[in-house]
């Protein structure tokens, strides 16, 4: 893949960041974790969504990080921010109250309806791999108005059957989903290293929406654990613009910690 990346002039992470950031146009309050989502949100603020308000999950508002935050609770997020709140208030008064318009989730496994597993590979009682668990993911999936998923895809991560459902996605029964009465509606998009996916209004099933430049449908099939649904008008993901690449490489992640 390195060759491809060199040929294309950007990395897989860079197109994932760029494609995700464009989906934040018109969003108001965004719940941010560290890593890729942090770069995605900061890129969106500088491009498609200048008035986007970032809420860091450690309880910081209006952060003005003087450096790239290296942990979700980096002190640089606090100094110069407009507000710091307790975890209780963050989760109760913001997330549970429906103030969060969009949040990011990822996972070790995702199924065709956007359900996520971040808990175990294998059985719960004697797991092959013990993963971190929910953290805030379960309540984010249920209470954030939109959930965007960013993760690389492969047979072992895009699976027909989760080993554990940590965070609920779509049920496959739209009538049931509408009756849930949550602010959350299941993931609204998935951005991978191969393309971007949406979820079908009717069935709630993950649907390939665009392919990244140089990626074939066969590659997607090879890296999806089920026969993927493909949009009739499948498009190509616009590559990162020179401006987006400049912002990522010079301002947001100069050391290439996440984007490389």
């Amino acid at each position, binding site marked *: 893949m390195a060759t491809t990346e060199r040929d294309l002039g950007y990395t897989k992470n860079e197109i994932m960041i760029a494609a995700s950031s464009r989906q934040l146009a018109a969003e108001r309050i965004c719940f941010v974790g560290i890593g890729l989502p942090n770069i995605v949100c900061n890129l969106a603020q500088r491009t498609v969504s200048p008035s986007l308000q970032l809420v860091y999950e450690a309880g910081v*508002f209006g952060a003005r990080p*003087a450096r790239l935050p290296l942990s979700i609770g980096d*002190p640089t997020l606090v100094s110069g*921010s*407009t*507000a710091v*709140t307790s975890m209780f208030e963050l989760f*109760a*008064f913001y997330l549970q109250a429906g103030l969060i318009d969009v949040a990011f989730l990822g996972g070790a496994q995702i199924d065709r309806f956007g359900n996520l597993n971040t808990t175990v590979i294998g059985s719960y009682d004697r797991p092959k791999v013990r993963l971190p668990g929910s953290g805030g993911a379960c309540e984010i999936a249920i209470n954030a108005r939109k959930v965007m998923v960013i993760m690389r895809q492969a047979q072992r991560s895009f699976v027909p059957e989760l080993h554990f459902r940590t965070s609920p996605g779509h049920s496959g029964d739209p009538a049931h989903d509408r009756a849930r009465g949550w602010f959350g509606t299941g993931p609204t998009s998935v951005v991978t290293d191969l393309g971007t996916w949406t979820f079908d209004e009717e069935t709630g099933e993950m649907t390939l929406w665009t392919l990244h430049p140089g990626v074939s449908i066969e590659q997607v099939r090879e890296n999806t654990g089920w026969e993927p649904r493909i949009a009739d008008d499948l498009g190509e993901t616009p590559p990162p613009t020179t401006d987006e690449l400049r912002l990522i490489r010079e301002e947001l992640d100069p050391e290439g910690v996440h984007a490389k």
Partner: protein
Amino acid sequence: MSESKVASMRDAVADLVRDGDTVAIEGFTHLICFAAGHEIIRQRRRDLTLARMTPDVIYDQMIGAGVARKLIFSWLGNPGVGSLHAIRRRIEQADPEPLEIEEYSHFGMVCRYVAGASNLPFFPIRSYYESDIPKVNPNIRTLTSPYDDATEIYVVPPLKPDITIVHAQRATKDGDTQMWGLLGCQKEAAFAADRVIVVCEELVDEAVVRRDPNRTVIPGVVVDAVVEQPFACHPSYTQGYYDRDNAFYLQWEAISKHPEALEGWLKEWVYGLDGHAEYVEKVGAATWGALKPGDAFSGEVNYGEYA
């Protein structure tokens, strides 16, 4: 990042307080925004449901002026002084008309705001056992704990005001609001509300707020309008800015006792004035001078620069 929310008190009330609204002007003794109550009277809002732990003189004035049809509260008095006679007349004699009431304890009111702010269907509380309060308020109900069947607990429903109005020492044009001194339940009441007006003694540059983010009580994301209105709490007080005017609280007993005295006071101090600036002028420099505290500074802490 967001555009300015700065407005005059007149415009903020005109835009955000509507006939029939449930209105919470909170503040426990401290930071009670009388100026907002006066503007609501001046704009002749009607059929409001007024919510406050302690209705205090401000709601006696508003209810005496006829803005409200219902009162939600937990302690109905003029602290350490006497009664709220305008409210009592409506409850005791339906004079000039009945006032619907919905009554809780202090903690019950606080829990209602927390439930409203947290989007919870109810909030559990260890109170009301063997009290007559639940008998006169069917909204106070019981639940049995799924962990221990012996434990029956009372619950109160969420309170979600259409509009909450709070006062603070300072805020930015974006509504990031900092307060110190008694905090009461303003944060919870603000988050529980559909709309929020923040009134402040001083509109400050965001750099002031960013220097001390832990001092921020209400982030701007939940604030709809910011009104800079010095002395807006008189006869209540703002810690560090002016003292409580206890003489006025004492005088209120006689004013509210007699409908015509109350009417006269409203004419002179509310209807007869264009806004709070005139009120401040009318109160007079001598009073403001007497209410001004000495200095007592907090000292600084170091957040550290992490570049």
